[in-house]
């Protein structure tokens, strides 16, 4: 086959879906799967009607949602062949920065004797189990979407997808968890997120080569 023939052939093939829309579908599916797992197996905390009046409780969502949004935005970039983590990677600092500010505030308003209590909390084990569990669905969806992409670095793309998936998972988990202190969130959430991100990296390296 001559190259011109190949070009002729390629021009006759149908138009593909844009990577952006593939990724949007993956995000939507991932959120739906996580929502189903959440409502069937986990559910809201018992005092949810009281909790929504608490600034500490609500601030958890500010952090988790900003992690999810920034990581999805970065995924869109690292999923393309000409995308680099450096282009948008700085955005990923948003959630940690917000959380660090809240933690400093917490240290200022709490008496020192209560620091450890708030940091250790009551749900650390649940946190480390449920966030990875809830993120399996979203991570799978994002990885499938990235296979339609062409990441220049498969491992990095998988890891960023892991961050996005754990942002989605942590948003749901935060509605169940009764530990609202920024000290708790800053200690345990990142550990859970690290597990998912590592998983994303390893899977990405395996399946995202093109």
């Amino acid at each position: 086959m001559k190259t011109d023939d190949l070009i002729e052939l390629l021009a006759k093939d149908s138009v593909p879906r844009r990577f952006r829309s593939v990724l949007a579908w993956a995000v939507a599916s991932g959120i739906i799967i996580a929502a189903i797992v959440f409502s069937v197996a986990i559910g809201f905390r018992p005092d949810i009607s009281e909790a929504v009046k608490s600034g500490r409780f609500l601030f958890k969502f500010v952090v988790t949602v900003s992690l999810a949004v920034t990581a999805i935005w970065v995924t869109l970039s690292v999923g393309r062949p000409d995308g680099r983590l450096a282009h948008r990677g700085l955005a990923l600092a948003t959630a940690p920065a917000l959380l660090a500010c809240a933690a400093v505030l917490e240290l200022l308003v709490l008496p020192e004797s209560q620091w450890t209590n708030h940091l250790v909390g009551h749900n650390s084990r649940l946190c480390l189990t449920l966030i990875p569990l809830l993120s399996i669905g979203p991570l799978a969806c994002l990885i499938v979407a990235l296979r339609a992409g062409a990441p220049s670095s498969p491992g990095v793309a998988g890891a960023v997808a892991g961050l996005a998936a754990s942002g989605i998972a942590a948003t749901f988990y935060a509605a169940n968890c009764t530990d609202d202190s920024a000290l708790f969130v800053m200690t345990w959430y990142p550990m859970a997120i690290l597990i998912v991100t590592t998983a994303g990296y390893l899977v990405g390296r395996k399946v995202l080569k093109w």
Partner: protein
Amino acid sequence: MAGDAGAYRQLLASLAPRIRAVARSRCRSVGAPESDVEDLVQEVLLTIHLKRGTWDQSRPIGPWVAAITRNRLIDVLRRRGRHIVVPIEDVMNSLQAEDRTPELTTRDIESLLGRLKPQQKEIVRSICLNGGSIRETAIRLQMTEGAVRVTLHRALKALAIFYRNSARED
């Protein structure tokens, strides 16, 4: 790329000589035979085709093409057991330069085509060799146009995989 087949064909046709220039200089610098060049060009074109959904239309196409070209070249030449580094600037620069030498014939594309499923092969031949449109091919093979499109797309994906495997066997 947004659905105008004529414009898309022109784009690929204008990219081919540039990619060929890069592939040739790359093959020379690693000592790969000249016969590999056209295989590389076709593999890059196929990848551009299959991954064209990842081009962000708000950005220039040059860096995107260069990134894909670079990725495929590194991958292919690495599989041939040579350690190479292709700086992106080289690819960008070479992509600017036009390569005017006439086309080479490909080494084993016929055998690659031979490995397609019979129906895929028939559709590829019908469109390639006879220059038939999707509709003509559909009528001739008594298939729906949709089925022809699906088969063609699968054949192209299969071809991309064959290219890779054949590079690995080398």
